[in-house]
């Protein structure tokens, strides 16, 4: 003990203490607990969703996602930074948008990346699709919009037979065959591979496949696991496991207005949590808050043995 500690503890009885033994006992307790919990309760591992599963099990959902990506009505098509210059999901804190300041660093053009580019690959060995694709790309923007709208209208009246989608005839030009080819590619597993592929052989970035299924496909599946934002979202976990309980406060804000109703909800939650986190870190320096423990008096319980030991006139302890 150096001089400052000796001075600090002056008048206080010192008792033998074995820190190393305490650490070993603590580690032993941890080992026994986690090994027992692991053996008894295991851990969750729900298999990931694939684009092929979406295309096979919910082909209508797949086509709705695909036409949204093509006609620009999908969420990611107009999302905004960091994917594109859209404004659909751009959030502000007052007049400031940190999202826009971050810029477009992961460029995504849903029509090109999620529809046209995969179809070009299929078209290399499908001359008929190549013709449809060429007709689509040669058309005026207005003509494309008309085809896309006609297809979307027809899709609303489509029926599903097994893994097939029967779309009523309409004036949707090449969009019908293009969507049918994309669905086929999805069901064959080609979309999973294509969207993951980049110019490199090895892959670790799942941005594009995840953005393709991030809407209805994942949301429909997530509902059964109580994963939706209104169900305390990502704090939960598949199966009967505790999940990220430490995110309870962060997730809590999403359950109440204005966070749950504001278009800037995420940014507001971040701002709130940033203020609270800084507040927690700076508790020792905040007048009033740094006196709260003394007023609450829980310390009397923690140090009850010590206080009992202190007899008057040494009642004040240290």
């Amino acid at each position, binding site marked *: 003990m150096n001089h400052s500690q000796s001075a600090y503890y002056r008048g206080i009885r010192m008792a033998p203490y074995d820190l190393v033994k305490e650490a070993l006992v603590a580690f032993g307790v941890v080992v026994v607990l986690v090994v027992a919990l692991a053996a008894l309760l295991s851990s*969750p591992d729900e298999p990931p969703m694939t684009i092929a599963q979406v295309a096979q099990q919910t082909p209508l959902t797949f086509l709705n996602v695909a036409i949204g990506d093509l006609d620009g009505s999908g969420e990611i098509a107009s999302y905004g930074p*960091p994917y594109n210059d859209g404004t659909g999901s751009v959030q502000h804190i007052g007049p400031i948008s940190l999202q826009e300041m971050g810029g477009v*660093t992961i460029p995504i053009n849903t029509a090109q990346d999620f529809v046209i580019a995969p179809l070009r690959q299929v078209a290399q060995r499908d001359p008929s699709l190549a013709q449809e694709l060429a007709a689509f790309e040669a058309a005026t923007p207005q003509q494309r919009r008309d085809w896309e709208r006609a297809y979307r209208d027809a899709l609303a009246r489509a029926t599903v037979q097994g893994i097939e989608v029967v779309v009523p005839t309409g004036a949707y030009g090449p969009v019908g065959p293009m969507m049918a080819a994309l669905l086929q590619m999805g069901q064959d597993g080609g979309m999973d591979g294509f969207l993951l592929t980049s110019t490199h052989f090895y892959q670790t970035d799942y941005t594009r496949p995840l953005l393709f299924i991030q809407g209805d496909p*994942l949301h429909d599946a997530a509902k059964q696991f109580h994963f939706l934002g209104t169900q305390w979202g990502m704090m939960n976990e598949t199966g009967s496991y505790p999940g990220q309980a430490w995110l309870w406060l962060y997730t809590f804000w999403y359950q109440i207005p204005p966070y749950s109703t504001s278009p800037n909800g995420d*940014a507001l939650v971040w701002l709130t949590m940033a203020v609270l986190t800084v507040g927690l870190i700076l508790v020792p320096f905040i007048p009033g808050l740094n006196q709260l423990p003394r007023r609450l008096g829980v310390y009397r319980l*923690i*140090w009850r*043995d010590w206080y009992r030991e202190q007899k008057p006139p040494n009642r004040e302890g240290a």
Partner: protein
Amino acid sequence: MNLTAKVRERILEAWPPKQLLPDEQPAYVHSYVYFLGILTVGSFAMLVISGVVLAAFGPQWWHVSAAGHFVNSIHFWSVQLFFFVMVLHLWAQFFMGAWRDGRQLTWVSGCVAFVVSIGTAFTGYLSQQNFDSQWIAVQGKDAMNAVGIGAFFNLLNFGQMYGFHIVILPAIVGALIALHLLQVRLRGVVKPYPLPSPASGQSVPEDRS
């Protein structure tokens, strides 16, 4: 002048072994509350050990191997225990006003370690390569993007999240825990609050925090 001797003397002066590993403590250090901090360190050690095994075999291993799944389960329950005891430790230190008498930075390092630990666990959930990872990635991306973080911290990029989870963030948490322990040992354990005088019935003066 021998620089080596000088550095050694400085180290011994700043960090005396007797103070780093004391064999006695004030008598008031006598409560299970004092066990929570070292339990947190023990859980972190278990996280590192199980995490190293998982990393050594690669991120696919635990999905296809019973042994791998068991090690993952140990890692999973270690993080649950880690947060459980760390939060109890944090509350206990709050109720004890543990930042008093010049210990403010000990509180700060502990809280920052807590915050970085949340990021570490979050990237762990993103690195699982299962449905939970997919969902947390697509849900979390909107929050990250809303404040501009998503521009360079892409939750959908498994490689980036895995790197953060197994190297960058645990190294920061480990360094913060080491700093926190060093601060605790060098400053010693805070004294109990003085009790109000029973004769006067008055509370003690405000503490110097």
